[in-house]
């Protein structure tokens, strides 16, 4: 039995079921949460390509062929899917706490199948096609009747569609240009442009703050984590596979330049923000910058730093998303002026938004700090300017958080005083804060595991 079929088609088959079950909210939520959880357990635990005595000697095959293309499970995409499914489980479970659009759960579930296909397909350049389709489906999550500002969702679609041809043509150049000196410059440029577009490197970043500000927070968090994981893992797979790319110092330098530029751009733009959603959008630019700076190091330590950055993003964003959804429910908006005094009624949601933002940029005492500190230490030796830009970004976001927090705490005239948060939300926030603060103080609980996981990139770990 070919196992890739299960990971590709089960989410796609369940998505319409979840959509039509939405009248029975708890069943839909349970199914949507159980699907990625089940797939997570399977991707971590299934023994592949060996007879299983339990099932009468049936062998679970790691490859599957469809229309002449091979879809295969290997160690790299197992790790990638572990990231994807664990994050999706958390984000689907979070819908118990915070509102999301009517397409969030079904589209999100379907997207998981397409992302799995993107990771499995060989040659993996064809992943660009599945990524594009996943982006088109994510448009349904990002824009709906409750979030009718369409610009961010549409730009996300446009940029994903624009990035796809560059990756596909790179594959053709690699296969059809005989002389290495001919194809290396062309393929490098094409691949660089393609990934710059897909990773939202400036000037292709404009959708990020728009989505953060105007879409449902959980949907934005889904796109900023689950989607981005696959793109980063595909890039790492490229590096791991192609020596000409891994050994190209100019390309690594371009990544460093792009990363430093993104960190600085995010730092400059976030400083003047007066909206929690948009602030997260610009903080994301800083985080993308950190990721590119880590990848630009072109070392095993850099890959470990990149994976740690991704994992910490996955911890920060659900907390931010749930908190922001509650703030928007309470005040109708997440502008600083609109949320005045909300912390007196929703203290935990208010702290969750601020903590999520701070953890994303690696502020001390949060979960993001140890990974960011490790990256800063690496950068300080090789590219100190990049480290300074990241620090500027951290300080800039901290200023915005301080300004927002002051507004949240400032009482409104004639405001009713009272704690309005639900018991379930209080429990969830408590778990979130405990995780964020514990990992900030004791990173040895998680980061060594992530660092060991980076060893799947055999050629990069040398």
């Amino acid at each position, binding site marked *: 039995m070919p196992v890739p079929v299960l990971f590709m088609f089960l989410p796609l088959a369940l998505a319409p079921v979840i959509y039509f079950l939405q009248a029975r909210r708890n069943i839909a939520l349970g199914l949507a949460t159980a699907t990625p959880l089940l797939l997570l357990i399977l991707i971590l635990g299934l023994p592949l390509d060996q007879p299983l005595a339990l099932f009468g000697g049936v062998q679970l095959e790691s490859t599957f062929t*469809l*229309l*002449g*293309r091979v879809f295969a499970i290997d160690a790299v995409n197992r790790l990638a899917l572990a990231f994807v499914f664990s994050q999706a489980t958390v984000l689907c479970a979070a819908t118990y706490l915070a509102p999301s659009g009517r397409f969030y759960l079904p589209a999100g579930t379907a997207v998981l199948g397409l992302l799995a296909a993107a990771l499995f397909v060989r040659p993996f350049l*064809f992943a660009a*096609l*599945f990524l*594009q*389709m996943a982006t*088109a*489906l994510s*448009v*349904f999550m990002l*824009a*709906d*009747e409750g979030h*009718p500002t*369409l*610009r961010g*969702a*549409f730009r996300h*679609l*446009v940029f994903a*569609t*624009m990035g*796809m*041809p560059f990756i*596909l*043509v790179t*594959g*053709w150049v690699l296969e*059809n240009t005989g002389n290495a000196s001919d194809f290396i410059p062309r393929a490098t440029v094409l691949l660089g442009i393609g990934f710059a577009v897909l990773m939202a490197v400036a000037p292709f970043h404009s959708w990020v703050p728009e989505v953060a500000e105007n879409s449902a927070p959980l949907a934005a968090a889904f796109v900023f984590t689950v989607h981005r994981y696959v793109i980063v893992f595909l890039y790492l797979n490229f590096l791991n596979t192609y020596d000409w790319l891994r050994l190209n110092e100019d390309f690594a330098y371009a990544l460093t330049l792009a990363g430093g530029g993104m960190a600085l751009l995010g730092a400059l733009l976030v400083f003047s923000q007066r909206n929690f959603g948009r602030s997260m959008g610009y903080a994301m630019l800083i985080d993308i910058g950190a990721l590119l700076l880590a990848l630009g190091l072109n070392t095993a330590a850099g890959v470990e730093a990149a994976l740690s950055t991704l994992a910490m993003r996955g911890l920060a964003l659900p907390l931010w998303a749930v908190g922001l959804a509650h703030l928007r429910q309470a005040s109708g908006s997440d502008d600083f002026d609109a949320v005045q005094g909300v912390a007196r009624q929703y203290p935990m949601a208010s702290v969750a938004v601020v903590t999520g933002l701070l953890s994303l940029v690696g502020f001390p005492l949060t979960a993001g700090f140890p990974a960011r500190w490790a990256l800063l230490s690496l950068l300080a030796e090789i590219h100190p300017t990049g480290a300074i830009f990241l620090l500027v970004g951290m300080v800039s976001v901290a200023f915005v958080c301080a300004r927002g927090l002051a507004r949240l705490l400032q009482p409104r005239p004639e405001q009713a005083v009272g704690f309005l948060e639900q018991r379930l939300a209080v429990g969830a926030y408590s778990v979130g804060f405990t995780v964020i603060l514990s990992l900030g103080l004791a990173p040895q609980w998680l980061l060594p595991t992530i660092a060991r996981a980076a060893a799947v990139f055999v050629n990069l770990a040398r």
Partner: protein
Amino acid sequence: MDVGGGVIAVAFVPIMNELLLTLATPVLVVVLITASLLVITNDWRLNFITLAVQYVGAALLIAPLVTWPVMGARLIAGGCVIGIFVFTGRQVNYGRQAASPLPGLTNLPALIFPTSFAFRLMATIMIAAVAGYAASLPELALPNLPLTLNIASFALIALGLLNLGFTEEPMNAGLGLLTALTGFNLFYPALETSLAVVALLVAVDFSVALAVSHLALLRYPVSPTTNSTETNA
């Protein structure tokens, strides 16, 4: 029967290919006109017809280089895309004035041309000329493809992107995105002939059309009583 069908196909395909090669230049002109019209006008009804013609033209241009099933798949995909758009357009009265509550009165005004018509026309002519020139340069032209296909591909991508630059209204910008994708689809299936890639490219077109329709439905209220004339200029 099979033998007879095979003989007919063997005789028929070369004749058709020769005919298509002869018609390549007129078809190229038609494709360029359609891409230009999509930039210049904002009228959904006209644009849907134009896009349909563009899909047929693109399929005819690529036909000599690909197998007939591939060309058929492109045509069917185009038909599905147009079908989705027409269905969406009917839901929101083609992005214009709400439909008349009186039965029998459609209340559709004359074709809409944007206020920046002259500027768009000039930009379209300039971009098409630059794309045509770039396609004729040996160092930029895509190898192993005829000049007509190179020109069509460059021009469609350039004009599609130009359309995206002019508007963020989902339907018209979406048509620009699909035009750019058609430009890419003109040369890529000729390079990468596997059936899986053709199927996936068709699926990409389809997914873009669905996403664009979803955004258009959000932008324009479906209710016939809602007076929501958001300018799509």
